[in-house]
């Protein structure tokens, strides 16, 4: 590992340059999945590559956040071409979906707040003025607050998928369960239950930060495929393979995907979408179920409305 002489400078310098090159390329719109694969292959070649890349990525990420927080201050170049799109919010929703919209008053001179909510079993698609799209899952609520310098969405309950139009001068943040997710050009899903937050990154990059004093180091960058689970005291990040990522997001098509999921866990999922609540007898709670289910199956299919036992039998059939 240790090389001697002049080459050292060149070797370390060139690894640093390569890492910088990768980082810059990743920020371009031409960045594709195969580029991501090539980057990962390069990273896996050597801890030298990991060291240089992780360090630059973390440091460069800090410069982006700071610059984004203070637009205008450090600016030395004219920004006349930048559009300040006014937050005239509009939304598109499935006809069957009732959305509660509460128009807030004016906050200061540049922001207004709009709330969207779904009830149990409903889903909604929302198109924001900046072109960002939000998809709300069952029993979920958000409030949208767009200002000139920043865009903020609070996830008050439930689960939502965000497809964000990136704008470095007007950062897009999601506040949920005491944490903040800041978009760095991204598609991601956020789910809250009690004080637990789960962020699944699909595309691009996002930063998860927590205000909690219990978490010592409170910011982490997520890359595609990573799932962060945050509680008031911890943040854990894991990598999810792409197929299971698709399963996590199947709710967007109204589906639930189970893969050797215990009946106890599956019941909790079904109950999020249905007024009729399932109860699982403890004796069968550990049986597993696999397959793709209509999230609203309980109301549509009588076979699902029987006793917990028929639920179990049905599930068993599907497993084997």
């Amino acid at each position, binding site marked *: 590992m*240790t090389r001697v002489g002049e080459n050292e400078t060149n070797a370390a310098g060139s690894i640093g340059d390569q890492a910088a090159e990768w980082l810059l390329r990743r920020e371009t719109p031409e960045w594709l999945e195969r580029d991501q694969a090539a980057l990962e292959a390069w990273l896996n070649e050597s*801890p*030298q590559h990991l*060291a240089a890349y992780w360090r630059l990525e973390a440091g460069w990420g800090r410069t982006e956040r*700071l610059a984004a927080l203070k637009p205008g201050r450090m*600016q030395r170049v004219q920004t006349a071409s930048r559009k300040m799109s006014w937050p005239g919010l509009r939304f598109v929703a499935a006809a069957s979906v009732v959305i509660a919209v509460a128009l807030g008053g004016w906050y200061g001179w540049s922001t207004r707040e709009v709330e969207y909510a779904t009830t149990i079993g409903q889903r909604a698609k929302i198109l924001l003025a900046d072109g960002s799209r939000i998809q709300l899952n069952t029993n979920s609520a958000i409030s949208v607050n767009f200002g000139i310098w920043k865009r903020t969405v609070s996830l008050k309950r439930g689960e939502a998928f965000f497809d964000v139009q990136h*704008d470095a001068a007007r950062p897009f943040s999601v506040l949920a369960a005491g944490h903040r997710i800041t978009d760095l050009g991204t598609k991601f899903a956020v789910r809250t239950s009690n004080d637990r937050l789960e962020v699944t990154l699909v595309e691009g990059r996002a930063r998860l930060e927590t205000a909690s004093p219990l978490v010592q180091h409170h910011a982490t960058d997520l890359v595609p495929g990573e799932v962060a689970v945050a509680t008031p005291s911890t943040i854990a990040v894991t990598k999810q393979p792409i197929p299971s990522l698709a399963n996590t997001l199947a709710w967007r098509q109204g589906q639930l995907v189970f893969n050797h999921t215990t009946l106890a866990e599956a019941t909790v999922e079904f109950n999020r979408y249905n007024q009729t609540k399932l109860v699982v007898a403890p004796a069968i709670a550990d049986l597993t179920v696999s397959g793709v289910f209509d999230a609203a199956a309980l109301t549509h299919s009588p076979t699902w409305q029987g006793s917990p036992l028929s639920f179990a039998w049905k599930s068993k059939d599907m497993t084997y």
Partner: protein
Amino acid sequence: MVPAPAVKLWFVREVLPLEAALMRYLRSSYRNAGEAADLRQDIYAEVIASAQEQIPNTAKPFVFAIAHHIMVDRVRRERVVPMDTIADVEKLGLASESPPPDRIVIARDELRHLRAAIEQLPPRCREIVVMARIEGLPGREIATRLNLTDATVSYHLKKGMQLLVDVLYGSVPLSEAPE
């Protein structure tokens, strides 16, 4: 084998904040201060390789032990510096628990620090970094506006990125930032 995201998280949160102290140690011990950045790169690579096996409980003694080991190894190979120029890692007082720095103060200082760092970049480099980072302009657009080639813009961005990160992690004190 520890999963990569866990190693990365640990590296970014626990190891990188030690960089300023690590660089002071390398400079105080190793006469050839210009090579401190290469040493740092080798140390980080070794730290990551070890953490992939198992993440240590406390980062600081671990990182400095590896730093010491790598420096001794280099000195042996090069036979230029007498061994006693390497500061004794035991004397650094790593065992004593120093209170963690106030993170709120760091966040406030970081902004000032970063602005000062940007001011210190070479003019062309600074102009391009500001356009890319603060205006969010794509490289091609910057090249068109400044009448430069894509490669030149990319060169300045890569250089600016590395200089800024050096300053942010305290590898280079502000006053000593090159150029």
